[in-house]
């Protein structure tokens, strides 16, 4: 029996509409249907302050506010600081992963990724489903 609420609200953040659609579809296939989208960190932050989300899945390289800046803002916000935050990004240098980890990212997926990796990381952050 899954302990994960499959109707949990999830916010996905990416400046590429293609990637938003891929993540949305993969989440749908995994059973998550309550998904909202934002195309940069500042729009995402606004949504996070307007509505209670259970998970953020964000790209890194976006303008005007990057995923890293969003993560920093989230961890500095008393209401949002414990929100699970997964980074999905093409930034695949060790220094990037370390910086994200130090900033408090919950998990890190490098693009291109597959559905199995997404499922594994979701399970690591949310629990098995």
């Amino acid at each position: 029996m899954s302990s994960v609420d499959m109707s949990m609200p999830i916010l996905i953040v990416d400046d590429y509409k293609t990637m938003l659609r891929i993540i949305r579809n993969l989440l749908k296939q995994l059973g998550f249907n309550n998904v909202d989208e934002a195309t940069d960190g500042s729009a995402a932050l606004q949504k996070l302050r307007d509505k209670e989300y259970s998970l953020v899945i964000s790209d890194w390289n976006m303008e005007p506010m990057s995923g890293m800046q969003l993560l920093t803002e989230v961890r500095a916000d008393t209401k949002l600081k414990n929100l699970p935050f997964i980074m999905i990004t093409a930034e695949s240098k060790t220094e990037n992963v370390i910086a994200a980890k130090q900033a408090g990212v919950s998990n890190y997926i490098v693009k291109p990724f597959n559905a199995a990796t997404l499922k594994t990381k979701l399970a690591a952050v949310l629990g098995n489903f």
Partner: protein
Amino acid sequence: MAVAAVKDRIAAQLEELQKVKGSIDPENLVGVVEAVIDSIEGDMTAVGLKVYADIEALARYINTARAEIADLRPDDINSTHLPAATDELTAIVGATEQATHTIFEAVEGIEALTAQMDPEVASQVSAAITSVFEACGFQDITGQRITKVVTALQKIESKVDALLNAFGDDLKRDGAPRSPEKRTTTPSGAPARPDEHLLNGPQLPENAISQDDIDALFK
């Protein structure tokens, strides 16, 4: 006059010339040296003559280089070639994005039909659809790679502009430098980000770390 004094006079005249004109034309350089040499005629040393000959040779070299660069039409690089290349690359991103969304429409249509399929067949179709979604990630990655190339072209454009400025207006037909080499703002005009130094984009396989390596960092 001592060589040091000659050098000082040349330096002073060049500095004055640069203040007035902003840059030093090789012709002016020769003129300055000749003026100094004329003023010290009579006490010219062998070293002084050598300095003069060297500077004259340098000026000739610069003039030849300038003529060769002018023949290359460097202003065309900035006014035509680089913008055209940038536009073409941007069009590629747009076209692949459009094509990818067309694929999505088709695949999402097929996915909607799986409810009407035999469960075993539906499962196989769903697995195939997942593979299509995963593969469509190419558009995001190629888009980012192309953006890196466009950024590199913009840096070249800025270098060519600097070259045109250094060699004067006769090599340059239009405009001031378009983009500074070091970005202090993002392309949208927003201030540069604090994580600018970490924005490397997609890496070539030999430079990237794997998902397994990343996972190891989280253990």
